């Protein structure tokens, strides 16, 4: 176990205009994965070091790129400036891995410019994932405007690949 810098996580949050204040001693890097631990879990993790998963999973680094967890997106969601709210149909299609059409967007907050990362929210205020704006939201009138990068449907895709019956 190594005590890691929270830098990749804080850098990721900044993509959305959010600032995270993670207590550095409680952010732990295990292999390529980052976790946020409570003080009691941190003590336990130090005592019995050979664990696989602990506390709140924040994300992983692969080939130098940071891949966030949904827990991290939820933490960022409260502060993110860049966010869009989509209608039910667009929300469902997004969760199924599809991109977002201009027609499905109900609200835009923060930057509307091409190339910017934005969180995607349902009309219930739930963060469903994030994407990258591929056409200026101000100018585009229809068609794909946000490219899906990560959505909560990922859990379903993971479940399908490691199907275990629960009893």
């Amino acid at each position, binding site marked *: 176990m190594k005590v890691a810098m929270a830098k990749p996580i804080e850098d990721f949050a900044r993509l959305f205009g959010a600032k995270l204040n993670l207590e550095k001693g409680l952010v732990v890097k295990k292999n390529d994965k980052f976790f946020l631990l409570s003080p009691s*879990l941190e003590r*336990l993790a130090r*005592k*019995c070091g050979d664990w696989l998963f602990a506390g709140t999973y924040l994300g992983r680094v692969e080939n130098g790129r940071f891949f966030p967890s949904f*827990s991290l997106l939820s933490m960022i969601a409260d502060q993110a400036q860049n966010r869009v709210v989509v209608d039910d149909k667009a929300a*469902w299609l997004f*969760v199924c891995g599809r991109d977002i059409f201009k027609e499905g967007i109900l609200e835009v907050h923060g930057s509307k410019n091409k190339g910017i990362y934005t969180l995607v929210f*349902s009309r219930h205020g739930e963060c469903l994932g994030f994407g990258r704006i591929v056409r200026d939201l101000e100018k585009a009138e229809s068609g794909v405007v946000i490219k899906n990068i990560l959505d909560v449907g990922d859990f379903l895709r993971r479940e399908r690949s490691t199907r275990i019956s*629960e*009893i």
Partner: protein
Amino acid sequence: MFGREFFVNRYRLLGWEFRDVTPKQAIRVNVMNVKGINILERLRGLGVELEKIPFLHGGYWVLCSDFSVGATVEYLLGYYSIQEVAAQIPVTLFADLRGKTVLDACAAPGGKTVQLADLMENTGVIVALDVDGRRLNALANQLERCRVKNTIVYRLDARKASKLGLKFDKILLDVPCSGNFATDKGWFRRRTLADVERNARLQREILAEAAEILKEDGEIVYATCSLEPEENELNIDWAVKNLGLETVEIKCYGEEAPTEIFGRKLDDSVGNCRRIWPGETQGFFICKLKKRERG
């Protein structure tokens, strides 16, 4: 010693007349994740027909749904878990879980781990163990989806849990077992008494390890989804006689476990356990244990 007739005859000797059943699907609301959200209304709005399970807090039968309840946004956000009814019972038998150190000794794929975290409101610590890599991946996914924050997962055999050097307030032993015909339609074709006895030995080893690492005032909840007494009443009788444990009276769905098995008289306290024959739920066996007071 195998085959449908052999096992059905054993059930008859235990007082239950065999009938084939298919348990209804059920969900359990993760209360910690739905604060301010009317999840039942949301599901009804999607056309999911639910019925409250009278003997469970937060448990609902799924009576009708045009789609899989495991493929909704609400499921993906961890608002509820899909969990068989009888499997929802064991965790509810622990008293006062908040802030405690809890061992989930055979945790994957994690349905009960999430339920523990929910009842603990993400306080304290859950140490979750399992040995199978694929099942551990499923456990990690469940923990992330359901926003569990108080759990640490080890790839470790429950029989070696003392290697962690910890003592626990609560230990959940949802032990590997032979299963039952209600959830496994090929059960009678595949299972033999030798399988059952092999599983029973493994379960006794896990019970013995748990007794070692339980705090003096701690509690163990032991559960199987097997109908075979070797994995249930006989193991608890052995634990009471050999591990310094005693059973605790529980009030939950199910009937009093028999204290005479195929002519063999067991300790009367085995009657504190609950046996659930397949019907409204799958088959199940549940027992709560604590250390016997000295002196």
